[in-house]
């Protein structure tokens, strides 16, 4: 074999090997980026603020460290977006039932209406959609700081005979095991989309 032929053979072999490697990596489930969620380049820590869960027990986002959490902002006097989101998240959570307990995400509805959403009201509302879902309410004074850390917004608007409604960010947030906002699902949401991306996020974590 001439030297030229040898070089050509070596190059061809290298290309074949690289392609096979890439194909194999894809087949073996090499981590992919989420498709629906936007990953934050720098995860944002959530401030350590006191709150109450729907049982009236103290709950801080930091208490959820060690688990992935899917969090969103809502309120119980919300007929359209909030129950629809809870329904979608219940579907997503069920699609993730096969994951080991430590990888199954917590789902948390953070109320943007602390005046009306006392723990008892959250208890009547949130677990209806899934028995493991949790509600969180924080004092009015802490809500601006908490929502800001997520990059979320809310505002009160007068509304008919129900006195007021709450405009709020409808995105769904992913909080990592270090209590940092790591990803955002913009609207619209589907159970399949959220479940698939949560698996991708878990694989990315495992590959690090």
């Amino acid at each position, binding site marked *: 074999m001439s030297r030229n032929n040898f070089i050509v053979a070596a190059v061809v072999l290298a290309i074949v090997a690289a392609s096979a490697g890439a194909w194999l990596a894809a087949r073996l489930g090499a981590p992919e980026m989420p498709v629906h969620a936007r990953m934050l380049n720098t995860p944002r820590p959530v401030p350590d603020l006191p709150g109450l869960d729907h049982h009236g027990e103290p709950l801080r986002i930091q208490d959820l460290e060690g688990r992935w959490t899917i969090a969103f902002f809502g309120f119980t006097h919300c*007929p359209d977006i909030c129950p629809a989101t809870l329904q979608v998240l219940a579907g997503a959570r069920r699609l993730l039932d096969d994951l080991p307990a430590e990888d199954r995400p917590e789902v948390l509805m953070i109320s943007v209406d602390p005046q009306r959403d006392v723990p008892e009201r959250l208890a009547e509302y949130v677990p209806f959609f899934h028995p493991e879902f949790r509600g969180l309410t924080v004092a009015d004074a802490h809500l601006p700081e908490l929502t800001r850390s997520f990059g979320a917004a809310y505002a009160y608007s007068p509304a008919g005979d129900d006195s007021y409604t709450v405009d709020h960010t409808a995105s769904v947030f992913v909080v990592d095991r270090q209590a940092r906002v790591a990803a955002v699902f913009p609207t619209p949401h589907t159970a399949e989309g959220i479940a698939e991306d949560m698996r991708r996020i878990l694989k990315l974590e495992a590959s690090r």
Partner: protein
Amino acid sequence: MRLTVLLLATLLWGCAPDAPETSVPGDLPPEATAAAYAGSPVISDPWVRRVPPAARMTAGYLSISNPGTEPLVIVGVESPAFGSVELHGTIMTDGVASMREQEAVTVEPGDTVRFEPGGLHLMLMQPTDGVPTSGAVPMTLLLENGERIEFAAPVGSPER
């Protein structure tokens, strides 16, 4: 109902596109043809969101088609199951959802308006006997021309 309109349209198209309105094929239910010819609105896929029994309110959804020649203006909704019903629209601005009452909803001739999650919805408030968690909710659409359209919306949760 949507099927009836489609069927009617197909038959008319197939038989005689230019036929006068009286030459209706005889095998269609008379009330359906009469309604379509009067240009009456057609309601399809109505439903009411299943929410926790303790919830103070829920939302209703439907599609409404206007086969007539005049705009159809919905000015209100009534239901014996709720003390107050409003037409609402959820508007998404920079990811922020806000809900606003609509004075009226207009369906242009030949158009269909969909009330659906994240958009237009019937805001059902002050349940008379708790929010309905099963069965179907009787409702009446009130039109600007004084017409009333009754329908029943089953309770469900389609995202599941």
